[in-house]
């Protein structure tokens, strides 16, 4: 299969990036190194090419009704120019994908994961029967990038006349660039304050270069997928294929806060039942007590019996601890509970800790 490239491919190569295959795309996994990039986002700011993410435009008189049916969150009271996290479930409550939904002036936009884009489009279209809605995959129209970190606002303000202080957490704003429409939002996937931008494709490289240039004296670095993963992991943001997938529900994944069980939506009955009666597994955060790094896929055992599985694990660069996320039975989910992670055949002690592992002022979705 031919790998897709973003408009910034040549820039990444020129910046010394290592390019890897990710969800059908050829993407930068790192430039300077994951640890340096991770710290740059925590301490200054970093720029991410996330053009592999998909965007689906939803219009029509039933758009609100359709999204309330399709997704776990309630969009009824949502103000224009804001964004909200939501999960898309199958009828059995397991996850099709997790999404960010933007309510804009004349339309809605659903941002989906690169690897799920085709599946999501098919699923959304199949659910649209009987609704007056038009769905259009507009991923090719926008270049998407993220600019995240404590200095992101200050650096971006050098390029933007609009006062960014007026753009609140999870607010969005449409703007014009050379007569074309772009969208700027105070959203992100790092646990830091920051922005995500949807730029008309032809201007993607120009905006990327301008932000890197504006931040060159502030410690701003380009950031690859490696640090994108370690940053989201410390902030305990779910990653599809790891914490959530077609075998897990948002209730099991501790995403109940993103589900309004008082409205009707696909999968709601199962989620409500789980909420009331409990689940057989729960997502927890843990830290290693013995030497060893937990990795996604490793087994979790208690008293010699396999009881769960690690979904993500790595050394947390900000905490300087080996930590992980994983599914365990509810009786092992309490903070302070100890269990073993099986690392290359060897039971290695770990303990449930409070999550997120890392929280800054921009915590949450």
């Amino acid at each position: 299969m031919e790998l897709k490239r973003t408009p910034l491919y040549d820039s990444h190569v020129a910046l010394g990036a290592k390019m890897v295959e990710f969800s059908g795309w050829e993407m930068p996994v790192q430039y300077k190194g994951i640890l340096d990039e991770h710290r740059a986002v925590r301490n200054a700011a970093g720029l991410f090419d996330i053009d592999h993410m998909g965007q689906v435009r939803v219009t029509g008189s039933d758009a609100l009704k359709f999204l309330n049916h399709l997704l776990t969150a309630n969009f009824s009271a949502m103000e224009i120019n804001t964004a909200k996290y939501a999960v898309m479930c199958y009828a059995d409550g397991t996850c099709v994908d997790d999404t960010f939904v933007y309510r804009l002036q004349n339309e809605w936009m659903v941002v989906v994961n690169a690897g799920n884009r085709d599946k999501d489009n098919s699923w959304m279209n199949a659910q649209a029967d009987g609704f007056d809605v038009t769905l259009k995959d507009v991923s090719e129209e926008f270049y998407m990038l993220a600019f995240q970190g404590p200095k992101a606002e200050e650096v971006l303000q050098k390029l933007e006349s609009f006062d960014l202080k007026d753009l609140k957490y999870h607010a969005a704003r449409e703007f014009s660039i050379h007569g074309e429409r772009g969208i700027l939002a105070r959203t992100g996937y790092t646990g830091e304050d920051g922005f995500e931008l949807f730029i008309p494709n032809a201007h993607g490289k120009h905006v990327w270069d301008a932000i890197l240039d504006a931040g060159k004296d502030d410690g701003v670095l380009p950031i690859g997928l490696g640090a994108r993963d370690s940053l989201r992991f410390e902030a305990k943001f779910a990653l599809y294929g790891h914490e959530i997938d077609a075998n897990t529900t948002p209730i099991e994944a501790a995403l109940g806060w993103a589900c309004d069980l008082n409205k009707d939506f696909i999968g709601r009955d199962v989620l409500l039942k789980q909420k009331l009666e409990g689940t057989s597994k729960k997502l927890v955060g843990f830290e290693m007590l013995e030497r060893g790094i937990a990795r996604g896929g490793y087994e979790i055992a208690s008293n010699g019996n396999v009881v769960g599985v690690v979904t993500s694990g790595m050394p947390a660069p900000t905490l300087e601890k080996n930590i992980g996320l994983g599914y365990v039975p509810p009786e092992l989910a309490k903070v302070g509970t100890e269990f073993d992670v099986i690392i290359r055949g060897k039971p290695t002690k770990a303990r449930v800790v409070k999550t997120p592992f890392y929280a800054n002022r921009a915590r949450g979705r």
Partner: protein
Amino acid sequence: MSSGKEITYPNDLKYAATHEWVKLDGDTAIVGITDYAQDALGDIVFVELPTVGMELKAGESFGVVESVKAASDVYMPIGGAISSTNDALTNSPETVNTDAFGAGWLIKVFPYNAADLEKLMDAATYKSKIESGEIH
């Protein structure tokens, strides 16, 4: 990290296709991972090495080198007994990044099976196979 820097291939070493190097020091063989390998792995954060005295054949895994992203097995380029391990890497695994062919060595093997040396590559062969994409 040597990202952006030229990858080096010292001439006095032998190389395995799995990216380990061997340096002979009298009757002892010193083993580590190559500059190419440390660069490909990125920031190394954890090294797990075998117990001294363990005997392993060429091609068997003797430990694990972990970067932020992933755990990678390392393999015996030659068979023999583990006579020493680089315990300094427990507290400073990043030495494998900064000095892969020197202070970042992993194990010493004594005695080693000299016949296994013939299956290893010289620097020029290893380099050309990497540059042609035959091994990666």
